[in-house]
């Protein structure tokens, strides 16, 4: 009766996990799954991060909210604390949704660091992992570094000056140093360039895993926004990698609406998706949120393949007005539910104010409902990177003066998108119509509700400024400019308390 050394049941110690190569893919699956689910129990119950609502603190849901809710593309009715201030760009450093994104980013980074640390060549050699297993592990390690770079890119874009930790730092009690945008930019760039040779060629990896094209796409995003991040013109670099992406054999999904359905994994347009499944990959985040929260009022639940809506998300009139119609014609991308909805948003808390967006659905192209037996979990994958975005980025980089591409090619890419949307050439534009303002609008038409809008508006100088206002921007119905510092989110107050080495972003 003197033994206090008990062993956990159905849990394994870190040493046991890494002794067996058979476990590595399951750890890698967690790194990818960290973008989708909330924890180890679906759809909820054993969360990865705590102190915040479990569903609301999933990666894609938090990312989507910070990228979309403050913009013209979306508005949400709910009064969860902190959410209304996202609608109106009045957030402060104790905003729970800002914290959710921040902690999700660092959760991913910590997980990747742990995996990278535990799969160093030295450690693998010590464990006798050799030959094909060794090569496979090195590939996993490269993908883990890609995922870490992706999250650091999100940190760079949304928070700027964040704590910096790599696999060199262990797990324990210490205060990480704060990095800045320039250093973080350089780090993300060097990481991506460094792993590129080790990644699988474009379109050759397993579904939902990162390949070279995913890394190129991320590099291109880094370069396209380099003026915002580090004040440098890197459009030529952006075009270099966009050419690689576009030349890899992806093709536009013939029917625009099929991109957002329960079987969108079949699409040849997806470059890097975050996968969801109504049975196997469930949470109250991701596309489950995007499908359910967008349904309310007189919308037909059957059409969306869900039992009922959460009555939250609509769009603002400024975005509706970017389209020639509201019923999907002539531009298929302009599809709104307008019955018993008001175009103007007089009361943010009422679902009827603002047109509802018809986009993400839990039905297949054959009209089949998603796989979950009756509940509201959806099968639709989230298109984090897709070819149309690459086309638009290419056109923008060319227009902004990058070399390695041409305006004729840019026009051709844009018109490919428009032909798909219009069904014919009637919506095509001329070279004279192709300018940066058009690109910004076209990005909204093509990519609305896909998590790009805040970054786009910042890049165009229109996120906070008076150059472009929309209803409830700044907290008034007519809209008004807000302080420039809101181009970046604040570091959460909780981390400033926990880590005395951090300094708050300017203005907060």
């Amino acid at each position, binding site marked *: 009766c003197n033994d206090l050394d008990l062993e956990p049941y159905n849990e394994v110690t870190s040493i046991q996990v890494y002794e067996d190569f058979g476990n590595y893919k399951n750890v890698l699956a967690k790194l990818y799954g960290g973008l989708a689910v909330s924890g180890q*129990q679906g759809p909820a119950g054993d969360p990865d991060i705590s102190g915040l609502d479990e569903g609301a603190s999933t990666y894609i849901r938090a990312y989507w909210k910070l990228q979309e809710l403050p913009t013209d593309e979306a508005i949400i009715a709910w009064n969860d604390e902190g959410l209304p201030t996202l609608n109106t760009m009045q957030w*402060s450093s104790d905003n729970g949704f800002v914290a959710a994104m921040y902690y999700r980013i660092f*959760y991913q980074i910590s997980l990747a660091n742990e995996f990278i640390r535990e799969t160093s060549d030295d450690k693998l050699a010590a464990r006798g992992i050799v030959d094909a297993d060794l090569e496979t592990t090195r590939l996993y390690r490269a993908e883990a570094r890609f995922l870490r770079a992706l999250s650091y890119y999100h940190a760079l874009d949304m928070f700027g000056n964040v704590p*910096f930790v790599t696999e060199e730092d262990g797990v324990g009690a210490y205060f990480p140093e704060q990095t800045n945008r320039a250093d973080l930019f350089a780090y993300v760039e060097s990481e991506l360039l460094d792993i590129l040779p080790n990644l699988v060629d474009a379109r050759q990896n397993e579904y939902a895993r990162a390949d070279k094209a995913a890394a190129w796409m991320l590099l291109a995003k880094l370069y396209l926004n380099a003026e915002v991040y580090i004040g440098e013109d890197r459009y030529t670099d952006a075009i270099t990698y966009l050419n690689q992406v576009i030349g890899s054999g992806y093709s536009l999904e013939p029917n625009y609406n099929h991109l957002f359905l329960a079987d969108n994994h079949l699409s040849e347009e997806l470059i890097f998706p975050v996968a969801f499944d109504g049975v196997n990959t469930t949470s109250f985040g991701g596309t489950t949120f995007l499908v359910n929260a967008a349904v309310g009022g007189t919308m037909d639940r059957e059409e969306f393949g869900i039992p009922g809506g959460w009555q939250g998300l609509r769009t603002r009139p400024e975005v509706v007005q970017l389209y020639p119609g509201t019923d999907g014609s002539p531009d298929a991308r302009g599809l709104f539910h307008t019955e018993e909805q008001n175009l103007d948003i007089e009361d943010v808390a009422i679902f009827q104010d603002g047109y509802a967006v018809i986009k993400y659905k839990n039905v297949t192209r054959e009209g089949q409902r998603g796989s979950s037996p009756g509940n509201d979990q959806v099968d639709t994958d989230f298109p984090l990177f897709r070819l149309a975005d690459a086309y638009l980025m290419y056109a923008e980089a060319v227009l902004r003066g990058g070399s390695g591409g041409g305006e004729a090619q840019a026009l051709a890419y844009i018109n490919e998108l428009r032909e798909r949307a219009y069904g014919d050439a009637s919506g095509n534009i001329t070279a004279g119509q192709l300018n940066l303002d058009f690109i910004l609008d076209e990005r909204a038409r093509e990519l609305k509700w896909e998590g790009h809008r805040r970054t786009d508006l910042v890049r165009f100088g229109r996120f906070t400024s008076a150059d472009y206002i929309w209803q409830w921007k700044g907290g008034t119905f007519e809209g008004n400019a807000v302080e420039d510092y809101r181009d970046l989110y604040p570091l959460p107050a909780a981390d400033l308390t926990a880590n005395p080495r951090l300094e708050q972003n300017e203005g907060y």
Partner: protein
Amino acid sequence: GNAQAQTVGGTVRDAETGETLPFVNVLIKGTAKGTTTGMDGNYSIDIQSSEDILVFSFIGYDAKEIQVGNKSTIDVELQGNTKQLDEVVVVGYGTQKKSDLTGSVGSVVRDDFNAGQVTNPEELITGKVAGVQITPNGGSPGSGGKIRIRGGSSLNASNDPLIVIDGVPIDNSTVSGAANPLSFLNPNDIATFDILKDASATAIYGSRASNGVVLITTRKGKAGQQTRVNASSLVSLSRVNNTVDLLSADQFRTVVEEQASPSQQALVGDANTDWQDVIYQDAISYDNNVSVTGALKEVLPFRVSVGYLNQDGILRTDNLERTSASLNLNPSFFDDRLHVNFNVKGVLTKSRFANQDAIGAAAAFDPTKPVYDTDGLGGFCEWTNDNGTPQTLAPRNPLGLLMQKNDQGEVKRSIGNLQLNYDLPFVDGLKANLNLGYDITSSEGDIVIPSSSAAGFNEGGSIDHYEQSKENFLVDFYFNYARDFKSAGSINATAGYSFQDFLTINPTFERVNEEGEVLEPAGIETRPQYRLISYFGRVNYNLNDKYLFTATVRADGSSRFNPDNRWGIFPSLAAAWRVSEENFLKANETLSDLKLRLGYGVTGQQDIGSYFPYLPRYVQSDDASRYILGDSYYTTLRPEGYDSDIKWEETTTYNIGIDYEFWNGKLYGTLDYYFKKTDDLLAEIPVPAGTNLTNRLFTNVGSIENKGVEFGINYNVVKNANLNWDIGANYTYNESTITSLSNVEEDAEGILVGGISGGTGNTIQVHTVGFQPNAFYVYEQVYDNEGNPIEDLYVDQNGDGLINAEDLIRNGYPNAKHFFGFNSSTRYKGWSLAFSLRGNIGNKAYNNVHSANAAYQSLRFPDYLNNMPVDVLRTNFQNYNLRSDYYLEDASFIRMQNLSLGYDFGKIFGSSVGLKANATVQNVFVITDYNGVSPEISPGVDNNTGGGIDNNFYPVPRIYSFGLNFSF
């Protein structure tokens, strides 16, 4: 040759006053034959033999035995036993005379227990002991109460006291299929509660003692006792006595007309339904108990009891059925050198848990709708879409929720121990004590929701099965040495070893629908386990009954911590000076006892929820949380956050106390001041981002302080042959302050806690350094001239022209700083009348029922209408203003817990059967300014909720009960 029938008679008197005593029991020892004295104190009884022994007994007096011999007249004087100093109190690993105690210990014996329908043991002592607060968890049968001794000493670790039943520390964690882990113990089997409060008393329990220790001793037989059968039967009626003040159907129609859009107005119906009336019922319960006490062949004392309780809840479909049995044997062998104490208790509970969502639904469901609708889902009127499918966001029919969820759990639990206490032959005063105990629970249950119901419609019904088993084992072994060195004092020393292992097995099952489709895959089976190994010792030194010293130490090892931090040492020291034994007071007849106590001790807390918090470990995902890579879904492996250096919380307690007694026990009580400081506080705090495998970690950080005063007083107002009246009062002041919460900045906002309804993820409380835990964190509402709140207008605390998080204030706390109890017990001849009152002063409650419902926003949903509390007519709020301090109310209260009237018929049916009857009302009234259902809201299972948040609270009913008690 002595078999000679004769008649014996005489008079029984009070030894002090000389007054005659009626109703005294006179029994022939070892038989069931007996009588009682008449109003004149006279008795007469026929005996069989001159060797018969008569036993005279009466409540409040010491029993007396007299052998008849050849006397025909036996007059008896009985000595009143008010002197409580000779009472024996159970302390950890032994007993002590009350007069010898150096620590702060509160005791409640059977005679003082609360009467009426008491389902859970802790309800027996609610309001009886200073420093002990028992807050009801709600009105559901068996839900019991939350016990807090001297406030909580932790923030996130458990604040529950250690509970020890007959020497076996029990696992007090949640049991699947039971409302409360203590509901398995039949209150009728309990003899005494001894509550160890300060560290000098509790430190013998080391790492589990920071929140006090409750020692429960069950009833036993006595050697030489005649066999007695006791049967009791209690029938009770529970009735809801407070509900939410909602708009009536007519008021609702008016409000909809004024406030809602035409399309919403079209949704109004013409029924008049009071949904709270529909979901609550008058509930009947029966509680029957039989016990047999005695001594087989005079040498094997035993007690056997059987109990059966069937209790309905006031919320329809709520029911608890409990069958319990217990056996105690406590024989002695080898000329009393070996004492054996053997206990086995077994219980079977069958519960049907009512769907408590119905409480919130009754507050929100449209009162203009009828209960039933033959075309509706499952025959109930529900909010549906045009195609007849249920609306997912609308409230559900409250009665439908109750009738269409069958949630049944069955728990079998047995706890038992064998204690051997052996007087070692070679060393005088040396005893060895071995205690082997177990606590085993096995539970299972099913939750079934039919596909015909609104709740089950979309999933095609739902069938959920669960099981759980718990296996806990205990081995204690200790030596006890007692010796009196006369003028050099006496010594009583104990030293021992203890081992306890706790294992829970949680198998998992898939949740399926009626067609057998899997709705949720089976999760990952868990088997949390921990083990404690301890060495402990105690020395009591008594010099001339004047100077008393106690020193204890416990070394505890817990499997929860890393081998380097695993062992903790928990010492205590205490001294007491019995001033009244000094010569200058000894002759004083007024002040019959005065003792000063001084104690210091360190205790720990290892009950931190997690079982391997120090170990880097990976957890597998369940099948619904996999991720696709290529064509296959992979279960994921997640590294858990960990703190390899995590260790005990340590609470240091200082206690200074006075025990006083006047006029030989006519007035007595205690006064204590305590100061507790918990360091290495285990709290869940945000870690610096990027440094761990989670964002919040359970770690040793910060400190919390508790200080308080406890005062207890008991007074015997009058005592004579016919009338006895005792009153008692207790008062506690307790104040907690968080003194540190992190290793760095201390002026931070703090940690948001106290989840509320109305949106997801909203909170209303905060833990901040410099404040009490769980401070309500709110905006200060601005009011108009009529005193009504102005919507969206709050005080701009920092004057920056904006209302944002910087204007939140900490405004009050859910925990009362002052609480008190008052008891009165009167006996007049055969009648007895008792009542108890208790109350809190200065606590606040947040009315979440109002804040999340009482706004016209409830009428803004396009396809359904929500009812609102009447409060909306005062505020006229359009939107929910969750953070307004308007919803924070003073929740001070006085509650009459208990009012009980009894009559002792004495012997009926010839002279062999005694009969007592009693009628009790529980929860008689509550005086409070609080506007919600109950001013007293317990913290619930999860400490983070902090209590004081009134969110669809299950009302505690008023209970009327009538009981009969037969003995023969």
